[in-house]
Every structure is written in C-alpha cells, then in structure tokens.
C-alpha cells in the first residue's frame, strides 16, 4: 500500500518558552538564534505509523513538507527512518500560512503524486497546535478522515483505525484512500537504523515550486485566509512546591491523596 505522510518543520519544542520572543508589530514568534528546526513530534509518529504498515504490507512511503525556507532536513529525517521518497514544496509565499493555506498547498502536491491508499498527518503541529490541516486536507481531496489514531491496520482493503477518545478508544473502519491523523499514543518513533541513515544522506530531495504543482499563489492571498492572528503572548508558568508531611508514610499518603483530589 502506498502512503503519503505530511510532515512539518518546527522550532525545537524542547526549547523553553521563555527563550522565544514575540514581535508585536508583525505578530510573529521569533525563536532564539541557533534553535535547530526539527520534525514536529506528531508528524514523526505519523512516519512511524506509515513504517509499521509498510513493515507488514510492503508498499511505498512518500514524505512531503511545505515551507518558506529550507525544510528538506525534516524530510531527510523521515527518509532516514525508512521512508522511500521525499519532496519539499518551497516558496517565500508559504511563510505564515494558516491551516487552510497549508492544506491547499499539500492537496496540490498530493494530487501531483497521486496513487495513494492512505495519507497520514500528525494530529497537530508541535508549534501552533491548531490540529486542522489534516481534516481540511481530507475535505479538499474529498476523502474520509479519522483523527487521533493510536493504531492503524489494513484489513481487506480497508483501514481499521483505533482512535483515542477521552475515556478510552474507539475502532473505526474507513475505506482506502483515507486520511488519518496520528496521535502520540501510537508509540515511539524508531531510531533511524544505521544503513538508512547513511543512505538518506545521499538521497536527492526534489524541491517543487508552486508552478510545479499547479498552485495559483493568489489562492493563498491574505484576504482569502480563514484565520487572523489577533494577539500572541508567551505563556508564563508558575511553579509552586509544597512538601506534604505526615508522622507516618501512610499519613503523608492520605494527605497527598486529599490534596490531589482537591486539584482535579
């Protein structure tokens, strides 16, 4: 089965929030200098999900990424994990795309690639966390979407998807092709094996421009964007530490249980 995985490059989410700055004029987040861009964590798990399906059913995995600058590193990372082919779609106009804009670009690229049974996205991006691209993309492509997957199986030309819900999970079946967004419960992404790591370094990753995928840049005009940023702020986190005491460990445990029950 052939899978297309959409991955996004984000500033390293391990960077403490206080290191970021916000430009109030342009309403942009300015990451600190030298922050390495990394693959969005959920997207990495989407690649893992694709690889697990490939381990079982063979097929081909194509990875694509959209960006304004150099985003080939995240595609290369997916290749080193074991994906077969990668493309990046780059243009200066792609800076600050909203979910609709990103989905539009991705849909054009996916239509160019064609021949897919499954499209995978991360459940949300590690930077903005909007979690909309997957669903909008499915809508544009006219295929079913299942979100928050924690397990995907291919059974009789159908996809059986385990989906995380608040108090457990549900199992859904969807035809091929479908779009599935992947949640972290699917499991840890694999560490790229030695050989694929070295081979991925040598692979060519073609760069597509808007015209290569038949994209009309006017579709991405600001006026046509569906979202508008009103304000941005860096979250402040307060830490409070309270030592719970008790004459016996059992007593301390009871106190702790009471405290916790008050919190939730």
């Amino acid at each position, binding site marked *: 089965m052939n899978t297309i995985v959409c991955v996004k490059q984000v500033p*390293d989410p*391990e*960077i*403490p929030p206080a*290191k970021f700055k916000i430009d109030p004029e342009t309403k942009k987040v300015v990451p*600190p*200098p*030298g*922050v*390495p861009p*990394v*693959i969005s964590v959920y997207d990495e798990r989407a690649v893992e999900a694709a690889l697990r399906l490939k381990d079982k059913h063979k097929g081909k995995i194509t990875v694509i990424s959209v960006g304004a600058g150099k985003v080939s590193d995240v595609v290369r*990372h997916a290749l080193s994990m074991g994906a077969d082919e990668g493309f990046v779609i780059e243009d200066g106009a792609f800076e600050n795309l909203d979910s609709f804009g990103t989905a539009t670009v991705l849909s054009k690229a996916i239509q160019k690639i064609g021949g897919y049974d499954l499209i995978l996205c991360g459940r949300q991006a590690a930077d903005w966390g909007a979690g909309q691209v997957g669903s909008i993309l499915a809508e544009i492509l006219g295929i079913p979407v299942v979100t928050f997957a924690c397990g995907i199986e291919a059974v009789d030309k159908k996809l059986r998807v385990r989906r995380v819900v608040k108090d457990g999970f549900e199992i859904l079946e969807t035809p091929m092709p479908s779009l599935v967004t992947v949640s972290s419960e699917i499991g*840890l992404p*694999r*560490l*790229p*094996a*030695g*050989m694929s*790591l*070295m081979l991925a*370094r040598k692979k060519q990753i073609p760069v597509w421009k808007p015209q290569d995928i038949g994209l009309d840049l006017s579709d991405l005009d600001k006026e046509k964007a569906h979202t508008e940023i009103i304000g941005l702020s860096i979250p402040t986190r307060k830490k409070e530490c309270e030592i719970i005491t008790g004459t016996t460990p059992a007593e301390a445990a009871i106190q702790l249980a009471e405290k916790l029950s008050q919190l939730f």
Partner: protein
Amino acid sequence: MATREVFWNISYPYVMYLLAALGVAYWIYSLYQRYQLWRIGRPDECTQEIGKRIRVFIQTLLTEILTHRKFLRDPFPGIMHFLIFWGWIILLLASAVDAFTYYANLHLVGTPYLWFSLIVDIGGLLVIIGMLMAVLRRYILKPERLNSVFDDGIITALILIILVTGYMVEGLRQAATELKTHPEWALWSPGGFVFAKAFEGMDEESLRFWHQWLWWFHALMTIGGFVYVGLVFSKFQHILVSPLNIFFRNLGPVGVPAPIDIEKAETLGVGEIKDFTWKQLLDLDACTNCGRCQDACPAWATGKPLSPRKVIQDLKVHMVKANKKQTHSSESVPTLVGEAPTEEEIWACTTCAACQETCPVYVEHLVKIIDLRRNLVLAHSKMPETAQLMLRNMQSRGHPWAGIQSLRLRGDWTSEIEVKVLSEGDRVKTLFWVGCTGALAERNVKATLSMAKVLKAVGIDFGVLGEAETCCGDPARRAGYEFQFQISAEQNIETFKNHQIQEIITMCPHCYHTLKNEYPKYGGAFKVIHYTQFLYDLIQQKKLNLSHALALNLTYQDPCYLGRYNHLYQEPRQVLQALPQIRLKEMERSRNRSFCCGGGGGHMWIEEQPGTTKINQMRLEDVLKTGADTVVTACPYCLQMFEESIEHKGMKETLKAKDLVELVEEAMEATRT
C-alpha cells in the same frame, strides 16, 4: 669430580623421545586446529607493521612480562605467578642445558655441575611454592573473582605431580648412588635430597626398580600433559597463546573501534561470532579467566550483571560451540547476544577501560562490547529506551541533552563573557572546543566560563563556535550508533577546515579522545590538546600567576578518557600542585587504577541498571575516605556525577565538586583585578 650419569638406570630412553615427539606433535596440531578456529573471524589490521610489533614485544617482554610489573599490582596472585613463571623458565632452561651438554659431549662436572643442580632444584621449588599458593587461593581462600573449572584442578594436580615425582626420581637416584659415595654432592640437590634421605634404608635393587618406574611415570605424565592440554585446549595454552596475543595487540589508542565502511559493510557490528576479527577471537583464547578485569570493573562492583571476565569466557564457549554446529550439523548457529553475553551485560559497560588496563595479557574487551552494541543498535534497533532518547536528541538537535537539562541554548554561555564567536568565513588558529555538557549543563557552564577567562587572561587569541558547535559524536559511537558518529565527525571536520583551525583545546576528555584519536580516520588530523595539558604548559612557561591562596584539602578524580585512554596523569596533578596552599590526598584507587564516575560510554544519558549501588555513589565513598573537602576533576561527566552523588548523600555543605580550571581561575583572581 662431581657429576651424574644422564639416563642412569634407564633403558631405551629414545622411547621417551619418541613419545615426547608424538605428544608435542599432537599439541602443535591442537594449536593449528585452534588457529583454524580463529580464522573464521574477519581479517585484522594487526598483521601490519610486524617490525614495530617485534620491537614493542621485546620491550614488553623485558619491562613487563619478565618483571611481572602488571601482575605484581596484586601482590598475592602476582607473587604466585612470578614464582611459577620463573620456576618453569629455570626448569626449561636447565633441561635445555642438560640436553645440550649431554649430546655435545660437554659433560657438566665439578663445581659448575653442583651449582647447576642447585639452581634446577630451586626452580622446581619455586614452582611448587607458587602452585601451593595457587591451591590455597583457588580452593581455600576462594576470592570472588576466581571462577574455578575442572581444567584448573587437573592442571594444578598435573604440575604438582610432575614436580614432586621429579624430585622423587632424583632422590631415588641419589639414594642409590651419591648418597653412598659422595653424600656432600646430594646436598646440592636439596629437593631430591629430602627424598633420598627418606629412601635411604631401601636396598639398591628396590631403589633401582622404583627409580625406573617413577622415571617413566614422570616422563609419561609430562608427555600426557601436552596431550591433555591440546585435547581440551586447556588454559595452560596461555603460555603460548597469551604472548601471541600480546604480540598482535592494538598498538594504537585504547578503545577505538574500526570504522564501518558503508559501501562495503556486509554486517553491521558483530551479530555472529565470525563477525569478530581473528585477533578478537585470539583474545578469547588468550584470556586465562584470572578475573583481574572483573575486580576492576565498576559495573560489577556495583552489582550490575556485567563482568568483563565472563563476557570473554562466554564468548570463548560460544565460539567453540558455534563452530561445531556450523561444521557438524545443519543446525543454525546459535544467536550470539542473548546467549553469551546478554543485552544487559553489554549495556552496563561505561567503557572506563579499567579491564583492559589491568589485563596482563592485553585482552581487549572494549571494542568487542562496542561491536556487539553496534549490531544491536544498527541492525536490530535494540537499545535501552534512554539510549534511544539520547541518540534521538543527538540527531535532531546535535547534542545528547534534553528536557530540563537543556534550559540553555548552546551559545548562551558566550553572552556572559566576551569571546570571539566564529561566524562563516572567520579564521582562527586556536579553537576552544567547549563540548555539549560544558555548553549546556548549568553546572558545567561555570567551568567553561572559568576556562574562557583563563584563556583571555593569558592573552591567547582563540575563537569558539557557539551555536555552530555540535556534539563530537562520542556518546553515539560508544552506544554503537556508528553512523551518527560518522555524520558528526564529518561535519565537525568540515567546520574545522572552514575556519582553518590548527589547534583545538577541549574541555571534555571524551571530546579530547574522539577528536584526537578518532577523527584522523575521517580525514581530520588537528593538534588536539586537553585543557589540563594547556594549563600545565602555561605553568611550565611561568605564564600563570597563581597567587591567591585557596586553602583546600583536595582529592583528584582521574577521568578515564584522560588517564587510561590518553595517559594524562601527571599534567593535571602538576597544575593542582601549583595552586597555593592546597593539600592533595590521593584516593586509594587513582591514576591508571582510578574508578569510573559512572558517566562514560553513553551512561551520562543511558540509565544505570539497578544494582547494589550506583557507580558514582561508590566512588564518592572513595573520596570521603581521603577526608578531602573538595573533589577535583577535569571532566564534565565526572563533575555531574559527583554533584549528583554529593547531593544524594546530603553533603553539599561539607564537600564540593570542582573542575580543575575553576580552581585555577580562583587562584588567579588576585592577579587579574
């Protein structure tokens, strides 16, 4: 004139020669068979530079083997082996002299003969004393590190029987001959004399009868010994195999694994016994199961499953078994890891090199363990979860740190002091290579700043890479993730070349080892110096004014990668001694016997397996025994490990962990203001 008749009372001595020739031939055949077994391994570079090897071997023979320098570090077993070793040398030389003089018709007579008899008897006596010490140790004292097998008992008994019957034969001859004619001659063979006195009352016929029988028994036991040793490939073979191993030992830096050629590699690391090189298999047979490495191993000492002795012995058993199965049946070769040794054992190693340092026969454990890790990681993606996290971090952000430990960014420290941060196109001769931990971990940044201040104070023109510095690749290489190391090495070498760097000063001994000893194979040969060497040179040139008295009681932790890997024991100590008003008290285990902090081999990030205690806590006890108020080291891992163990013990008020350069900077303070 004092003498004795060679082959007195013995008819058909050539029968003995014939049997001996057969016995020795069989023994040589057994060695040949073993040679064939080693050859299932891959080729090894150790057959190059034979001339240099001969030179080094002779040097080792004179300074180490004949003197037993390494053995005697452990007095009891050291003296024991010394006695047996020299006793046998005397006996073998004496036999050779005996045979030569007999067949060359140069019969030993008079005083030389008497001295000769005395020396031979002393040789035998030395062996007997040594063997009795061995029996005492192995079967009565039973130190933990000795793992006795059947073969040990057999060869012990065999040697004792051969020696005692030798004396008895001599005694019987003396009782029948010289005791009656020249009793003063007999005193020159004290071993035989004891028995001669005991047999004195017997009549000549029975003396001759028993002499003949015992003579043949003695000869047959000796010849049988050769056959036995060949038959079971007894550890007695170490007499030949271990020197061979010493001859072919790695002459380069310690613990440097061979690069994997991506284009040609058929296997990644060692998955089957035949993936080792033949020299690595020779290693297995050179091991005598003496257990010195086990005694030195920090993982074993703290109750982890790893014993370097057991790893080598298990691999040896596996080698024989796997080869038998391959040649004699269609059964598949048993898997290597899991059967011998286990994954837990392989991952418990901190690559501290204490095992190799102590091994008298130069068994090389480290590279084998890394080769086994390579296969697990590269071919099977099997590794502890924390190892995976570390490698993932290296891959995505160029350093192994994550979570709260990376509250800093790589270049943050440069904003706290004015330093030249190299940007594209900048050229500088001297690079100050900070290392991941020195740049990112808050505690270590203090040491980094100290070093930068010292460098500035002495007016060195240097640059740093700041954000552009990435990991040297050490943790990835030790964890077996070779390709990540290769990527890091190639990237860094390119960076060094772009800035036309000639000289690199490193903070971290692990970076030091990697840059200095491992990068040359990837095309990066730069002058790499550890900062302790640099400070030492400054002191030698009287360029450091250390006038501010510190008044501290210090002890010094030798970082493994500085000491055992690179033999820098003296430099850091000289720097310490130059500090005003300090007292340095060494720990019992120091210099090349130093005990690891627990942070090497990727273990700064790979979680320590449960054991009886943690390695850093055990080492802290060594520190406490010195009564020092400050433990000084020159490695960021050691510093982290000590900070952690001091905190764990609740001793933060009374014991400080310091980096050497921090003390130097403090001592300089007075001069700089």
